[in-house]
């Protein structure tokens, strides 16, 4: 299949996902906004009123900088993981490049992601954070996260065909990651000896870069961007390798 047909297939599958999801929701796009708003409200309430950790101005924007990248990561990874098994009938009966299933599923989630990013930027602007030229780095940062999630989804969706437990492992991993990503705490509370290691987690790196750009109005450190690029790129390469190795046997195991 040529690159252009591949792109056409990918677009059609992303559109399919998007149409199916939004036709089954009476409130449509509103749901993409509701979830992060509720989480932002709850976390802000707890950390500014109940625990009174204090010290962070505009805590709601601070939290949203963590929630938006994390939400995309968790949703994209889980839905990508079950994309091959969920389309078993198709995989068994139609010959098409199997990679497009997890990739299209992750990319379809990008539409929510974009809506939530817009929400974040609007709330940040409303809280008085003025756009700087560093905002131009945001698409790069979020783009690298999409690449990372695509890589993970390629690995987990192909393993899920052989071990149906993989989806539960992914769900548990997401719960753990919620605490390993600086969503409701700041990077400063991490002990210094772990700083470097902590940044190798791409989701944490995206959140940190996002806060640098939006809250601090400065460019993220080059070392952080390199780590994000390195791990995301490796994840995608690994994803294609694992997937390519396993895909021949998909239809025998589905």
């Amino acid at each position, binding site marked *: 299949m040529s690159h252009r047909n591949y792109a*056409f297939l990918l677009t059609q599958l992303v559109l*399919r996902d998007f*149409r199916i999801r939004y036709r089954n929701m009476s409130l449509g796009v509103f749901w993409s906004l509701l979830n992060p708003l509720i989480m932002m409200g709850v976390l802000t309430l707890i950390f500014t009123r109940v625990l009174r950790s204090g010290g962070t101005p505009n805590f709601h924007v601070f939290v949203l900088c963590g929630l938006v990248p994390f939400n995309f990561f968790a949703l994209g990874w889980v839905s990508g993981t079950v994309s091959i098994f969920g389309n078993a009938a198709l995989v068994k009966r139609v*010959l098409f490049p199997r990679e497009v299933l997890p990739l299209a599923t992750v990319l379809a989630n990008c539409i929510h992601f974009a809506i939530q990013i817009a929400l974040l930027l609007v709330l940040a602007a409303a809280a008085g954070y003025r756009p700087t030229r560093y905002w131009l780095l945001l698409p790069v940062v979020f783009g690298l996260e999409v690449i990372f999630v695509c890589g993970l989804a390629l690995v987990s969706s192909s393993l899920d065909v052989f071990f149906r437990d993989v989806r539960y492992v992914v769900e548990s991993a997401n719960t753990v990651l919620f605490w390993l990503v600086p969503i409701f705490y700041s990077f400063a509370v991490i002990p210094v000896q772990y700083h470097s290691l902590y940044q190798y987690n791409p989701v944490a790196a995206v959140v940190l870069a996002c806060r640098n750009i939006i809250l601090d109005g400065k460019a993220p450190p080059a070392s952080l961007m390199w780590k994000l690029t390195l791990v995301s790129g490796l994840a995608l390469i690994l994803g294609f390798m694992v997937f390519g190795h396993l895909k021949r046997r998909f239809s025998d195991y589905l």
Partner: protein
Amino acid sequence: MDIVVLENVSKLYSRRRSRQFLRTYLAHWFRRPRAVEAFYALRGISFRLREGDSLGVVGPNGAGKTTLLSLIAGLTFPEEGAVHVRGRVAALLELGSGFHPDLTGAENVMVNAALLGLSRQEARARFDEIVEFSGIGDFIDEPLRTYSSGMVMRLAFSVAMNVRPDVLLIDEVLAVGDQEFQAKCLERILRLKRAGKVLVCTSHDPELLRRLCDRGLWLDHGRMAGAGRLEEVLEAYQASVAAAPRG
């Protein structure tokens, strides 16, 4: 020129395939390994098909007919032997596998055309022809769940036929729509055949096979029980079915 070549092809289905949960893999490690129960879905299949050849595959349920088509389509791979196919394959294994009830007929046509390997330009150019052939009319912009099952099948068949394949594989799916539509489908398939395309089809309907195919292959428990001119193969197969004890 040979378009489809199967050389001593065997496809193994072992019980291991059912181990899809981690606990069954773990249990397997701790227990003493039993002899792996395996059986051949297909064993020692060889044939060559040239341009314009048409092969009708007969045999009882579970004989390996669908597995054979999956192998030719490249959906699965043989454990032994080799499968060579030249050109674009369209497999009508189960019509409408990629259809979704919440999408309109038109949206489903585009998704399916993309899945079957058409480019954007090809899909756009053939869209009207697909809709015209299906006879769906204005319903094309309605969600698929409002269609009758016959309409869904007609639409699926129309998309698949417009892929313009070099090799067409048909698995028991020709009982599509009403008599008029069936006749239209047969005419379209025969036209492909006259154009030198290769046709492989399975059916339990001998009349249908006689209309479409010249050569026959009889599968029984994954082995070739007979091969040659369709009429001879059908005769031998029907004689064995009639002779088999019932019940």
